[in-house]
């Protein structure tokens, strides 16, 4: 009975959970790096796929580099946190969106294909400002 209930849970949750596509991959990291997904804190490991709405963070000893599916890259220094607010890269439908919320710490942003094809959709938000780009590498600190 318990097994069949579990099965039911998987059947109900499975498809919606799987329907979410990876939008980025954690490629490089050192120290403690974590992801908050669906209110749960997960320890991050290199190669981990990131989803929309994930909050990626580093501890005092941590740093991390992420590559998005369009080739955009963001790396975080120590004690930093960034939410992937929304990401769409569908050249076939000309549908693009890149929005992150950088809460604290230090970061390097380098634009990818979205920055070339639809720079107006790129919004790098912080508590104080919204940063937009035209084919750019920039550094940000929020303290």
């Amino acid at each position, binding site marked *: 009975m318990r097994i069949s209930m579990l099965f039911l849970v998987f059947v109900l949750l499975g498809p919606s959970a799987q329907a979410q596509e990876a939008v980025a991959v954690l490629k490089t990291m050192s120290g403690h790096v974590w992801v908050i997904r669906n209110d749960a804190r997960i320890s991050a490991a*290199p190669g981990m796929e990131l989803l929309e709405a994930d909050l990626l963070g580093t501890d005092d000893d941590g740093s991390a580099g992420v*590559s998005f599916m369009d*080739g955009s890259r963001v790396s975080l220094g120590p004690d930093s946190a960034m939410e992937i607010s929304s990401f769409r890269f569908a050249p076939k439908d000309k549908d693009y969106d890149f929005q992150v919320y950088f809460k604290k710490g230090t*970061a390097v942003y*380098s634009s990818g294909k979205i920055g070339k094809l639809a720079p107006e959709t790129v919004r790098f938000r912080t508590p104080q400002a919204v940063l937009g780009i035209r*084919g750019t590498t*920039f550094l940000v600190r929020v303290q």
Partner: protein
Amino acid sequence: MRYIIIAYLSFFLYVLLGHAPTTTVVLMPDEDGGVGRVTVNTQQEEYVLTEPGTFVQVTERISPPGEMDQETIDRVFGPALEMQVPLPVSFHLYFQSGSSIPDAASSELLPKIVQLINERPYPQVSIIGHTDTMGDKDLNNLLSLERAEAIRNMLADQGVPREIMEVSAHGQNDPLVPTGPDVSEPRNRRVEILVR
């Protein structure tokens, strides 16, 4: 009223002590040598950074721009800069009209591409097929897919894991060189390999 004063004072103290919540933005040159622009927007104002190495700070307002020296950049942003993922690299492989076999010069590139893939941390490879505008649109969709799949199979034969490769086909919709309909254009008969 009292609350307003306290809020004002604490904000003043924050600023004095250097703890006012602040965003600092520094424009950097791109790795390919170009320099873009960053627009910095608050609800009230906007500033556009155009010179590499210049920065602004945003608290309530946007500060006048300044120049950040390399030593400060390294001290503040060193760990983040060290973790930056390598620049994605793209390659173009070219095809004869109607063919899904890459030309000789393109095939010779493959070992170099495989080596680059292997050097990357957790590499991902996008393989995107294209055609020129000769012939039927639907057939071109099919041909662009065949081209992309042919390249995927060649890369797989040289040891690139299939699960890190993603194939897509854009048919004649995404030309490198825009042309009219029914134009044979060698530069548009291509597969793009994007290594991230």
